[in-house]
């Protein structure tokens, strides 16, 4: 017979303001199997937890129900409290009186009655709870870091410096990411590449880091501590061991007019190429789509000129399987393709460019070697208009969210321009200036006051060309809201930061969740900002939401710390919520009849077979068997099993059945 203790929390007034907690406690006390019930102001507080522990000991409770907030919030707290009082933690459950009752209903009899119903329902379940013991699984102390931008670089270095192995996977031929494309960084205006490239080199040389560039995640299976990742190493058509990175092949390649991705199309590259001079690794790859040999079977000049004979035209993609214990996702972001805003003329007028393109124009390593020259004719623009929020904060055509970095980089762009073209004029159309951050507001002020950047509060409606000038039509909402027209030589759109185009697919491969904009979702917006809902997978950088560099680096180090914590243990305790095939029920030691449809239904290949033998060693039965290490506890097999031979601990047939019964019978 159960002796359940029911503890009703007021949650300050969060629950007690709409639910008559005293009556709920009274009603709970009358339920069969309930030994003790009470209400208390804050169950999660120290005295609240002490009360539970005390009652477990005093009343000999066999189960505990805390009716308070969502179990997603405090279930671990109360289970731990029970455990410390000697009660198996899985005998403790939480009834969600706050999120599912008091916060969604007004104060009324029906609300209190619902609270009583919810508690009774859970009493029905807890009667059938049984002690469970966490499952120990070994930890593979290698981390997989996906994405070699600043986030991935920082995470990799931190994990590697903690003494653990790292495999860093980057889809492009070089690590570096967006940060390597930037000219200077706000608010210090220090050169982006100057601070980044040493880190890139460190990655390449670190004994604990294995770098796989031009590679992508193909598949991720397994679970925390025991993932199996399959990486597709795209064919580089180069034998990396032989290649010395001398660059002869690049010089001789006849296909020279491919728009350079690194230079956002403002520069050109060859078919065999390194994306930029400081690339890591500094060894070329052949772009098969543009290579003459791959296109029409003739050329092979690079092969002829290569002094080490490193060209491999027959190289194929290679799939590498890795055992890893944790994954850091640092796949970064993309800028919105502004062609959706045809009224801004992007794509139509060469001199309408994105902010990222401007970075390349301003960069010393860029196509203009750092001189601001407009793409159409190479002239130095006398007047530039910057359009902030091009796609951000725009629910009708773009993204409803704020991209967070544009205010700052636009100020930086204008400032860089003013520094380089002293007689130039720069105008910024903006909605609000968001410069929250250390030294950020001062930076913007400097742009306005010292560099004479003109800020116009208003949006741009149209950009069009007339007589060789770009006419920017907009409105100045501060000056009696008059339409303004500015004749500019170049327009820079601060396009929204968006999730990568493959983000959704990648999330599905890893079974992590993502938001409406395809940014990956953190496990908790405040308290678990680097974790995902899948244990062992962490987030770093702008793949989670738009971020600037300092924030990205902090999160990357945070993710690395999480990995290091995970790797500090040899074994992990896993929630024992796993499926089990019965092995005692008659007839013949299990009711399983071995149809193995559970195995086809299992998303984790966690179901194998077991041969039951008699004393003579003869096989008398072939039944399903769940591997508790692989099972993730979804319970699909349980609902599928016709003979009810599989059950799942924590959500067993008896528990769920009893919950339904208790809910509907008062």
């Amino acid at each position, binding site marked *: 017979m159960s002796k359940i203790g029911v503890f009703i929390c007021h949650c300050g007034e969060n629950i007690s303001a709409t639910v008559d907690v005293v009556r709920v406690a009274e009603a709970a006390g009358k339920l069969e199997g309930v030994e003790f019930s009470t209400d208390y102001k804050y169950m999660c507080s120290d005295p609240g937890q002490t009360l539970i522990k005390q009652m477990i000991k005093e009343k000999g409770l066999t189960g505990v129900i805390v009716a308070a907030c969502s179990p997603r919030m405090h279930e671990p707290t109360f289970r731990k409290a029970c455990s410390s009082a000697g009660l198996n933690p899985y005998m403790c459950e939480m009834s969600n009186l706050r999120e599912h009752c008091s916060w969604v209903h007004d104060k009324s009899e*029906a609300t209190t009655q619902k609270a009583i119903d919810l508690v009774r329902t859970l009493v029905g379940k807890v009667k059938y709870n049984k002690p469970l013991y966490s499952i120990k699984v070994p930890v593979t102390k290698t981390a997989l870091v996906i994405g070699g931008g600043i986030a991935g670089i920082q995470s990799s270095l931190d994990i590697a410096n903690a003494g653990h192995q790292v495999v860093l996977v980057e889809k492009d031929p070089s690590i570096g990411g967006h940060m390597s494309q930037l000219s200077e960084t706000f608010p210090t205006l220090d050169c982006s590449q100057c601070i980044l490239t040493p880190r890139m080199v460190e990655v390449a040389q670190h004994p604990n880091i294995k770098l796989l560039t031009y590679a992508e995640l193909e598949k991720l299976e397994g679970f925390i501590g025991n993932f199996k990742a399959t990486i597709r190493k795209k064919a580089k058509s180069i034998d990396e061991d032989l290649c010395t990175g001398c660059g002869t092949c690049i010089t001789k390649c006849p296909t020279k007019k491919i728009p350079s991705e690194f230079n956002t199309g403002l520069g050109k590259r060859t078919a065999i190429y390194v994306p930029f001079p400081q690339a890591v690794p500094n060894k070329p790859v052949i772009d098969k789509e543009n290579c003459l040999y791959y296109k029409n079977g003739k050329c092979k000049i690079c092969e002829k000129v290569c002094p080490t004979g490193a060209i491999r035209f027959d190289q194929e993609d290679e799939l590498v399987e890795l055992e890893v214990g944790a994954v850091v996702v640092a796949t970064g972001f993309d800028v919105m393709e502004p062609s959706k805003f045809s009224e801004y003329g992007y794509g139509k007028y060469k001199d309408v460019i994105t902010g990222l393109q401007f970075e390349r124009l301003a960069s010393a390593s860029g196509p203009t070697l750092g001189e601001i020259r407009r793409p159409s004719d190479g002239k130095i623009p006398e007047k530039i208009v910057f359009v902030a929020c091009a796609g951000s904060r725009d629910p009708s055509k773009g993204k409803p969210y704020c991209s967070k970095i544009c205010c700052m980089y636009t100020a930086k762009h204008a400032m860089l321009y003013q520094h380089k073209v002293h007689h130039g004029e720069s105008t910024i159309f903006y909605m609000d200036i968001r410069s929250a951050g250390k030294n950020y507001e001062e930076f913007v002020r400097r742009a306005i006051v010292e560099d004479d950047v003109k800020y116009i509060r208003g949006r741009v409606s149209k950009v069009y060309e007339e007589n060789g000038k770009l006419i920017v039509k907009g409105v100045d909402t501060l000056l009696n809201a008059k339409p303004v027209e500015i004749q500019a030589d170049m327009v820079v759109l601060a396009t929204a930061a968006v999730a990568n185009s493959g983000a959704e697919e990648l999330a599905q491969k890893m079974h992590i969740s993502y938001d409406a904009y395809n940014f990956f979702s953190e496990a908790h917006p405040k308290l678990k900002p680097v974790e995902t809902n899948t244990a062992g997978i962490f987030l770093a950088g702008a793949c989670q939401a738009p971020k600037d560099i300092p924030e990205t680096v902090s999160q990357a180090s945070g993710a690395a710390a999480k990995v290091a914590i995970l790797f500090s243990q040899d074994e992990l305790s896993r929630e024992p919520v796993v499926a089990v095939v019965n092995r005692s029920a008659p007839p013949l030691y299990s009711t399983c009849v071995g149809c193995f449809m559970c195995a086809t239904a299992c998303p984790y290949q966690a179901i194998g077979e077991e041969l039951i033998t008699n004393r003579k060693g003869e096989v008398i039965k072939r039944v399903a068997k769940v591997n508790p290490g692989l099972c993730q506890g979804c319970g699909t097999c349980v609902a599928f099993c016709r003979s009810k031979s599989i059950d799942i601990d924590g959500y067993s047939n008896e528990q769920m059945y009893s919950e339904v019964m208790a809910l509907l019978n008062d």
Partner: protein
Amino acid sequence: MNEFEPKIVAFVCNWCTYAGADLTGTSRIKYAQNVKIIRFPCTGRIDFMLLLKSFGEGADGIIVSGCHPNDCHYTSGNFHARRRWIMFRGLLDMLGIDVRRIQYSWVSAAEGAKWADVVNTTVTAIRELGPYTDYAKVAGYLEKEANV
């Protein structure tokens, strides 16, 4: 006479809809009290027999809700569930068990408002359909069939 208050059981998955309903709470969006949630790890875990039992024990309506396709925490539990419900619904329909009384939905952890809407529209719909007397009569065999 008191207005009919439908009894509605919601079978929801832990990762999406339960979390979505938590968000409804944190967003303080109001909905009707008639729906009570039972938490499952995944829609794949929800046994059709539990739905049947609910009607047998006097439920007037049922909500079954989980992660959107492709968003399942366990990758495919909801796909299995969807097939199961397609078949189950067809069978119930054949048997004259009122399929309008079971509302299936996908509510993600981010769709707090949708959860409130699902609850409210279901409560309204069931209120319009009235108490499930057809099933209750069958379930109340003891009064009727004592002399088989």
